[in-house]
């Protein structure tokens, strides 16, 4: 309890006015325990005679607090300078700690204490446990402690030490026992007569292990849904078991006085997540935080979630941060009084602008603090920054940011800058956020229902996760989902969150296959259909009926609003509805492919032609590249979602309502057959008609439902190219390049490509690429990429840094995506893709450039997991 008290005291101190900043200098007699603990003083070797354990404990405690409260450390330094008090210094403590180790008495306490030292994390949690314990059990002591603070600092520290020692001892045997039993369980057989809970725990550990060295793709395809479900439940149970250790680690996170969520508490959690590598623990941390927010103020959750995923709204609204380095450096310059040159130098050394900002901020404290930042203020400011346009926008942005930076303490500056850069880089995938959200919401329901068991069962959590995930695929808008979940309950989300025209849903994706026989295997006993796979851009066309006004929108595969890009589509869409149905169609959502079209010869043009269209402010009169829409699915008609209907029913509706207009709007060419020769013939004719290959889809029954965002096994794609090689082309991010020689002088002659690791958010190098380019393309790429050059590889680039040969001549921002074909995959020590799995990276053999993927963002690139999957499938065949 006394810790809390001192913390509060410092907090107040921080917010004091300038006047008291001055007078504060005279109050040196008020010594703070934290100050004492954080001040190293090697000359002093006399330490109290209490046992080793307590010393170790105190040492960790002080370390920890320094970490937590860097800012306070600075502010208290002033106190130290005139401090006549003899501090207890960690240095000598750690000396004792070392002797403890040497003694090797094997006693439980010693063993425990080393364990304590091993991880800062655990010690943190223990301190917190201690705190809460002290709160509940030792009320009398608490009062005593608080009094002691005011009496004299001497006593204060003494009591503090005793207190923590006692509690630490109290806590340990129990903790240790649990840890030991868990360890034992992992090694032992399952038939031990242990409690069920722990059994599951082990089972799930085994399960995840199995997952890591996963079965090849073919198995994956055949694996039944239910087994996946089982895994999820097990994972949820494991998650629940983590909570045994961590639920007690509560920090006072919110500020009830003005009903705000301090930005600090969010940043502290970011820091914790950044230090944590276990995905499950990260989810746990997040979901607990979300739950706390829900308990505190449900309305704030949406803002917190947006800060966590570093977005400013739903994707389809298209509001983005991602500010340039130069601008951010300017703001750091202004808020810390350092020169831009020095900041750039630091950036070179450290590699992360966020950390540079933190460092700059910490060494130059302000005279007095502006109001501390809270989540809402930060979010609104970020929004303002992203929204500012026009002549003076640069300066406005800089002012906004500088103002916030000035108010930043400790790690706030780091994460604020990273948010502004557009990437938090704490290893928190959006998927994990969604899962955490589900857990928090479902637990919150239990809590607010006043149920006795405050912990949701694993089944319930998994169910909630499914509901949220599904809802999100249909309506990718966190606000809607959170609001509706709170209003109606997570499990009823599907009744209240439905896809609606105007809100793009995530498109369904197809799995690659290599041969027709593979398709026949997969679709045994199913009715299926084949369609041309058009080589264009996915386009989701929405016809919206809004209070008597009709609107048409076109969304990309990433749910970006492309309406501006396709004014020609927008103008002609009404003409595609059958004349006799015109009054009957108020709204619809169509899944289509937009393809470049040669009107003179009535044929499809390659994707490259489409990508030469202007992207913004397209004027209908200036359009040179005509587009034909090939519709293949109808997802919503007159506000009625159709995605749970079978493909056959959806197709019938398309034919009933829509009217093909040659060269403008056509239905995807299809054939319903199960005959291998027919399919082969159809594939050949698709290639002849300038298509990429075929899409093969389940036609009837439950499996033919439209599954938003899923790369489903109910949709398979068969490309001509797949028949050789690994089965699919890869979409890889360009992270570096080599200067060209000879004919390619003055351009880039080769490129370094990387896959995206969705777990860690890193870009992992996978191959060099130098073939398949036309001279024109090389010139175009040079123009495009030379603007993206960065001096240093990003900290989230994973490459063989010890090997000079693995480094390209220039590094790029991860923005450009190439589609690449490869003959074969191999393992190579100089590349890093998937090296978590194999120790070596997966590399492409004879890679060949196919085209630029303008429609894909770098995070939509082929993931490292997919590469691993491809590699395993390949090796299982050969």
């Amino acid at each position, binding site marked *: 309890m006394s810790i809390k008290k001192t913390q509060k005291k410092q907090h107040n101190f921080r917010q004091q006015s*300038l*006047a008291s*900043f001055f007078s504060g200098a005279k109050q040196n007699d008020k010594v703070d325990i934290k100050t004492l603990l954080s001040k190293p003083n090697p000359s002093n070797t006399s330490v109290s005679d209490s046992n080793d354990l307590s010393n170790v404990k105190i040492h960790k405690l002080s370390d920890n607090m320094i970490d937590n409260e860097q800012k306070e450390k600075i502010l208290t330094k*002033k106190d130290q300078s005139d401090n006549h008090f003899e501090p207890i210094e960690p240095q000598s403590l750690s000396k004792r700690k070392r002797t403890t180790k040497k003694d090797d008495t094997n006693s439980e306490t010693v063993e425990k204490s080393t364990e304590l030292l091993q991880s800062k994390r655990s010690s943190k949690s223990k301190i917190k446990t201690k705190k809460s314990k002290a709160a509940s059990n030792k009320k009398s002591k608490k009062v005593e402690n608080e009094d002691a603070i005011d009496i004299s600092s001497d006593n204060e520290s003494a009591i503090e030490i005793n207190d923590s020692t006692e509690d630490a001892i109290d806590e340990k045997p129990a903790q240790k026992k649990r840890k030991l039993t868990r360890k034992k369980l992992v090694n032992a057989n399952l038939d031990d007569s242990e409690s069920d809970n722990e059994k599951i725990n082990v089972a799930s550990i085994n399960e995840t292990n199995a997952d890591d060295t996963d079965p090849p793709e073919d198995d994956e395809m055949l694996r039944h849904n239910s087994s996946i479900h089982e895994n999820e439940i097990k994972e949820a149970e494991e998650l629940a078991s983590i909570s045994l250790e961590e639920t007690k680690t509560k920090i006072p996170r919110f500020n009830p006085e003005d009903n705000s969520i301090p930005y600090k508490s969010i940043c502290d959690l970011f820091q914790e997540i950044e230090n944590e590598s276990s995905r499950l623990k990260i989810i746990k941390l997040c979901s607990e935080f979300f739950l706390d927010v829900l308990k505190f103020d449900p309305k704030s959750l949406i803002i917190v979630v947006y800060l966590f995923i570093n977005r400013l709204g739903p994707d389809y609204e298209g509001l983005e941060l991602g500010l340039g380095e130069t601008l951010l450096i300017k703001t750091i310059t202004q808020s810390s009084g*350092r020169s831009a040159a020095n900041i750039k130098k630091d950036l070179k050394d450290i590699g992360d602008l966020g950390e540079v900002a933190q460092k700059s901020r910490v060494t*130059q404290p302000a*005279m007095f603090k502006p109001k501390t930042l809270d989540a809402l203020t930060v979010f609104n400011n970020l929004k303002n920054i992203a929204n500012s346009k026009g002549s003076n926008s640069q300066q406005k942005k800089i002012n906004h940011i500088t103002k916030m930076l000035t108010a930043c303490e400790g790690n706030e500056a780091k994460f604020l800058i990273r948010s502004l850069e557009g990437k938090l880089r704490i290893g928190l995938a959006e998927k994990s956020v969604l899962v955490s959200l589900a857990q928090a919401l479902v637990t919150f329901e239990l809590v607010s229902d006043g149920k006795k068991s405050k912990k949701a069962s694993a089944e319930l959590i998994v169910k909630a996760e499914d509901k949220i995930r599904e809802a999100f695929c249909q309506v990718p808008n966190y606000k809607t989902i959170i609001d509706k979940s709170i209003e109606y309950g997570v499990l009823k989300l599907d009744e209240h969150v439905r896809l609606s025209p105007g809100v793009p849903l995530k498109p369904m994706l197809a799995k690659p296959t290599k041969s027709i026989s593979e398709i026949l295997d997969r679709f045994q006993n199913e009715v299926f259909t084949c369609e041309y796979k058009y080589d264009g851009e996915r386009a989701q066309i929405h016809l919206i009926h809004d209070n008597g006004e009709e609107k048409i929108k076109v969304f990309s595969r990433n749910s970006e609003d492309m309406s501006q890009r396709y004014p020609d589509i927008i103008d002609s869409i009404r003409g595609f509805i059958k004349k006799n149905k015109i009054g009957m169609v108020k709204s619809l959502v169509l899944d289509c492919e937009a393809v470049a079209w040669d009107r003179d010869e009535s044929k499809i043009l390659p994707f490259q032609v489409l990508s030469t269209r202007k992207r913004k402010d397209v004027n209908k009169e200036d359009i040179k590249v005509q587009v034909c829409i090939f519709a293949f699915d109808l997802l919503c008609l007159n506000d009625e979602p159709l995605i749970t209907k079978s493909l056959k029913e959806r197709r019938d509706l398309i034919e009933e309502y829509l009217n093909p207009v040659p060269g403008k709007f056509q239905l995807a060419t299809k054939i319903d057959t199960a005959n291998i020769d027919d399919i082969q013939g159809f594939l050949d004719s698709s290639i002849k008609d300038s298509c990429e290959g075929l899409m093969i889809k389940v036609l009837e029954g439950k499996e033919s439902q439209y599954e938003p965002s899923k790369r489903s096994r109910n949709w398979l794609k068969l490309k001509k190219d797949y028949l050789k090689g690994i089965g699919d082309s890869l979409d890889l991010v360009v992270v570096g390049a080599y200067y060209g020689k000879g004919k390619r002088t003055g351009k880039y002659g080769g490129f370094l490509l990387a896959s995206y690791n969705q777990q860690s958010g890193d870009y992992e190098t996978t191959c060099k690429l130098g073939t398949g380019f036309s001279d024109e393309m090389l010139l175009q790429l040079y123009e495009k990429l030379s603007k993206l050059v960065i001096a240093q590889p990003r900290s989230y680039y994973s490459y063989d840094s010890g090997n000079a040969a693995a480094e390209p001549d220039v590094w790029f921002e991860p923005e450009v995506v190439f589609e690449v074909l490869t003959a074969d995959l191999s393992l190579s020590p100089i590349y890093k893709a998937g090296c978590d799995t194999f120790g070596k990276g997966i590399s492409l053999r004879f890679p060949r450039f196919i085209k630029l993927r303008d429609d894909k963002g770098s995070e939509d690139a082929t993931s490292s997991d997919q590469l691993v999957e491809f590699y395993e499938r390949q090796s299982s065949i050969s």
Partner: protein
Amino acid sequence: MLEGKFEEASLLKKVVESIKDSVQLCNFVCSEHGITVQAVDDSRVLLVSLLIGNEVFSDYRCDRNITLGVDLKSFAKIIRCGGNDDYLTLIAEDSPDSVTLVFEDKNSDRISEYSLKLMEIDNEFLKIDDMDYDSVIKMPSIDFQKICRDLSTLSESLQILITKDSIKFMAEGETGNGSVILKPRTDIDKPEQSITVKLNNAVNSTFGLKYIADIVKGTSLSNQIVIKISNRTPALFEYKLQSGYLRFYLAPKFEDE
């Protein structure tokens, strides 16, 4: 109603020029005692505190407290329009939305009048208590300016070490190090050249040179600068006016340990 007449426009010009790079927006608070300004820079590291006492003016009248929210950049532009030797009169209503500046040429009858629109500026006024500092030095302001400018070519931080009989300014940078040592001295003929050190405790403080560079813009206001420093507290840099002062409070830097 405010009416304040400067014998020479150059004084206000110098004052505004010396703070306009530190702060952009600030409130001129006018009372019967004179005009005060208090403002912090954007990074909240530097605090500017200005008092132009009523004795500075050849004529001064202010019946009621008036706050003029001024954008210093625009203010400076207007003041530059007047000649240095002109009379300058500031005129404002009781609750003004603009302030009027009248320049009168002493040699001809030319009168120029400008008005500047005022702004609502949010600014809490802080009472700054006097306190005892570990050491107080007084030195020619021009010398201080030169030292700071020279050392700023090397580093972004200026370290000031004060002992009983010396003042040492130091800068350490990538390209090299530099230091300047001054000893207390008394110059009877030119008292403004004197250097004095009053010391309670030895001082070792480090400051961001960017801020110091802003501070020394006040050099033209006074022959001498008074620097009051304590360890680990904001230091005070003061240029005295004929009546009043221009003070800068600067938070020291804490280097990593």
